[in-house]
């Protein structure tokens, strides 16, 4: 059976007095495509940041690729939720993507020609290659989103974390992205925070429902247990196409 790439044991986390996550146990296998769903404020982004080592748990243990999260960040790609951070910053799309290759090679803090070639390839792959010299403030939300995905891919990571990557894409862009993720998934493990549950059954392999506790389900469907106990698919019901997601019940 495939290796475990993410292993979380009895994790607790709180911001000050506010408990965000409790008793989290999660094992993600290599090659998995996990959709992380749950209500707003349920702790999805927090869980992602814990796995990235940007936050430290109050209790419990996280192992990513068998090590502490902070020591493997070079092998992880990350697409943050807030893409509009610093939009007035004077930086070209190319330089943003090159950030993804920063310090990837130990002991070197400058970028090489290979890095530039890889960055251009990543931009091309996301269909924004012609914007390489464009300042990010002049890009649309969708274009910027693609640039940030290219930044996550340029280092050819083993695991890819995406925090609501479809938020700024139109429906065509969304299907393109899912198709691309499916291709990537042949070699990379993917964890994606998403509200867009209608796509779940066609692309993802498992679902993690986060609402203070985490319920992991190894198939691409939302179970009654999730609905009843964790109040998860609130958005699902609102979005209105439950048949594609819900299994027989």
């Amino acid at each position: 059976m495939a290796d475990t790439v993410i292993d979380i044991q009895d994790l607790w986390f709180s911001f000050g007095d506010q408990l965000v996550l409790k008793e989290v146990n999660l094992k993600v296998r290599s090659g998995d495509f996990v959709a992380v769903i749950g209500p707003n404020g349920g702790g999805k982004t927090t869980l992602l940041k814990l796995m990235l080592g940007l936050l430290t748990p109050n209790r419990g243990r996280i192992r990513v690729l068998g090590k502490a999260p902070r020591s493997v960040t070079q092998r992880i790609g990350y697409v943050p939720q807030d893409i509009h951070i610093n939009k007035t910053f004077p930086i070209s799309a190319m330089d943003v993507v090159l950030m993804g290759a920063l310090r990837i090679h130990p002991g070197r803090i400058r970028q090489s020609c290979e890095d530039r070639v890889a960055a251009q390839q990543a931009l091309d792959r996301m269909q924004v290659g012609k914007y390489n010299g464009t300042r990010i403030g002049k890009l649309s939300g969708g274009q910027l989103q693609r640039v940030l995905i290219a930044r996550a891919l340029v280092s050819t990571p083993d695991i890819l974390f995406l925090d609501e990557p479809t938020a700024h894409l139109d429906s065509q862009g969304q299907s393109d992205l899912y198709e691309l993720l499916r291709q990537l998934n042949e070699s990379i493990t993917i964890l994606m925070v998403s509200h867009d549950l209608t796509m779940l059954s066609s692309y993802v392999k498992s679902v993690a429902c986060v609402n203070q506790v985490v319920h992991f389900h190894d198939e691409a469907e939302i179970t009654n247990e999730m609905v009843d106990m964790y109040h998860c698919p609130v958005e699902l019901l609102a979005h209105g196409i439950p048949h594609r997601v819900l299994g027989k019940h």
Partner: protein
Amino acid sequence: MLESLQFEFLRNALLAGLMASVICGCIGTLIVVNRIVFLSGGIAHAAFGGIGIAFFFGIPFLAGTMGFSLLAALVMTAVTLRAKHRADTIIGVLWALGMAIGVILLDLTPGYTVDLMSYLFGSILAVPPSSLWQMLALGCVMIVVVRYFHYDLMAMSYDEEFARLRGVPVRFLYFLLVSMTAISIVLLMRVVGLILVIALLTIAPFIAERYSKSLYQMMLGSGALNILFTLLGLWLSYRFNLTSGASIILVAGFFFFISLLFEKRAWVRYCLRVTDHGEDRP
């Protein structure tokens, strides 16, 4: 104007202005994109405490002022990194406290009255050659440091979280940036005054930011604009017998408003930035 260059003090003033322009263009760019203008203002004013300490205890001016400013800067930075939501308050307190300590200690210093105005607006027409050499050294060191950490600084300034993921020593760079700011402010305050320092640090980068595609261009643009402001200001000051520092600031302010008119949306964007990301961030 050219015939005035026969006076050594005017030549020195010009050289000091040019070097201050370049230094401020470089560090000011980093200050503006990292949104630590308020922190820099705090350091500049707290430096007054250092002036008071230097005179009262009779220690060398540069050592006293720089030591105190670095201390204040590091305290402010530590607070900013730890308790972001309280950072502006703490900076405000240290800002006022530093000035008060400076003024009181100068009051208590026997037989010596210092013209505080000269530290606010500087005395660029009375720059000693030693200051010129200090500025030259600082400028060279700063260019080397910024060049070495170029990509790291860019990554940290644009997206701190992602920079941390890529192993950029964000905390170290932040302290480095603030220390460079403190050292620059102290060296330049003596020459051009702290109000002019803050103007040179913020106005040119603000204007240059909109027309730059990279941090590097923004630094070059800010440096060039600062040189323009300084030359025009010095000329006005010479021609109409006005305070030099204030003249330079007026010229810079004039261009600031012209640039705002040039692009009407600037106000909207500026306001959005202030409301969205008003606080200083590490």
